[in-house]
């Protein structure tokens, strides 16, 4: 595990930042580097993208943390990648071509947080109906919803 992290630091230098939180390894990555970092880690044996999600820190800039959980099958170890994105149209490069599991996970993240994954093959809503207004898991989205009734969409 440590040699992978050292290699990661050696390759990416100060564009990645390794820390530990409650015994779990966390790597902060700049948004522009995420595809190359994930590709690098995959080549070093982190062959499962277990989960991908976001956290909305309303009031902080950049506002969103996009969080990736990777798993190393041989080392039996988890690794968490965090990317900060913000601005009016938060966006981060898609990793769906590196891990197939990212396809649906990124769609859900876009649906729930409005984070755009650039280069995603089919970025559309997955849980909410097409044509829904707003992104429900954002902290400024009220629990009771914005619209009294969801819009009806005909295909």
């Amino acid at each position, binding site marked *: 595990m440590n040699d992978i992290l050292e290699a990661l630091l050696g390759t990416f230098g100060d564009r990645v930042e390794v820390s530990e939180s*409650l015994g779990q390894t966390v790597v902060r990555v700049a948004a522009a580097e995420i595809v190359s970092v994930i590709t690098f880690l995959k080549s070093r044996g982190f062959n499962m993208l*277990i989960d991908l999600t976001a956290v*909305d820190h309303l009031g902080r800039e950049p506002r969103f943390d996009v969080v990736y959980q990777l798993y190393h099958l041989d080392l039996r170890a988890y690794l968490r990648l965090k990317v900060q994105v913000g601005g009016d149209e938060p966006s981060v490069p898609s990793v769906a071509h590196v891990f197939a599991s990212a396809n649906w996970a990124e769609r859900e993240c876009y649906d729930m947080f409005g984070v755009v994954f650039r280069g995603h*093959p089919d970025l559309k809503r997955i849980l909410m109906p097409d044509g829904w207004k707003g992104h429900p898991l954002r902290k400024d989205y009220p629990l009771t919803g914005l619209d009294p009734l969801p819009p009806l969409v005909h295909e």
Partner: protein
Amino acid sequence: MADVETKFGQVDPETGLKPMVINLGPQHPATHGVLRVRVALDGEQIRACEPVIGYLHTGIEKNCEDLTFNQAITLTDRMDYLSPLTNNFGYVLGVEKLLGVEVPKRCQYIRVLFAELSRIASHLVWLGTSAMDMGAMSPFFYTMQQRELILDMIEMSAGARMNPSYFRVGGLLNDLPPGFMEKLDAFVKGFPHWIDEYYRLLDRNPIWVERLKGTAPISAEDALDYGWTGPLLRACGVARDLRKTNPYSSYEDFEFDVPTETAGDVYARYHVRMREMRESLRIVRQILDGMPEGDWHVDNWKIYPPNKMEIGRNMEALIYHFKLFTEGIRVPAGEVYSAVEGPKGEIGYFIVSDGSGKPYRVRVRGPSFYNIAALPVLVQDQILADVVAAIGSIDIVLGEVDR
């Protein structure tokens, strides 16, 4: 998949015909819930397939942010409603990790006991329903009968059959009730006979075997790529079981094997789950023989409420009790990823706390969400009837897919 739409409308260059698009669901007995599957057919062969989800979305992750840490447990029950206790499990372990506490041995064993019973119960529902999808009606009645015994035991301890919320942060709702161990003993003695019976009903049935062998296969590489976990991944030959690889809650105390198969088809998944039931029973038997005595919750009033008798006598206890139920447990700020091996795969919780009594963010990694995403790979160029077999073998619970 941007090419999904083009695949759906693709004209065959030889015949000049467009594929026929068929909708399975959202309401269909073979989709195991409100799942819609669009398939483009060329004759009976599947050219493209797209699962459409979201019909059961209830905003559980959003609702968790508005409840205290203990209240949110009730929502985790409702995701994988066939094994609610394994859902509780991952969540409470995550919160306990944030709190930096470890529950006593007896509590850990009781949790493992119920996680394994839930696994058996969930596999029984899968066996019954997927056999019914294939046209075998009778296994369903036999599996439901045994599942009912497990639900009885859950009801005995938690007071509810389906949404027990039995695991609490720092402990359990209550200790095992009197008479529980006798009931468990009767189940453990009786159940092996029933596993043999299920094998007898299905494994020598040529229709069942012919229908399942070679159906909806997937390679280990694809399975890993799609984030498959649990019995599905083990049916592809990857022995990844969090109970062994990343043990939690005293799983390292128990002897059990991780069954794997290599074929990666529906038949392999069937065998992995059947053998898993035996392994779960092995763990349950070990707990039955060696259940530790002692405390079943942490002795800390800031996390686990004092008992009712104490509240009547002790002013301090009353105050702690009041604070706990009005403000919730104060969980230190931080973030944690906590995962357990559920019956369907890895149930992961990414919990972020800001130091208040309510979680700032609860992300649930439902195994079924990632499992069903690979359905197009499973059924590509297979025949339409195999979609039903594939969905049955994935063992999805839509409550967990849509959350």
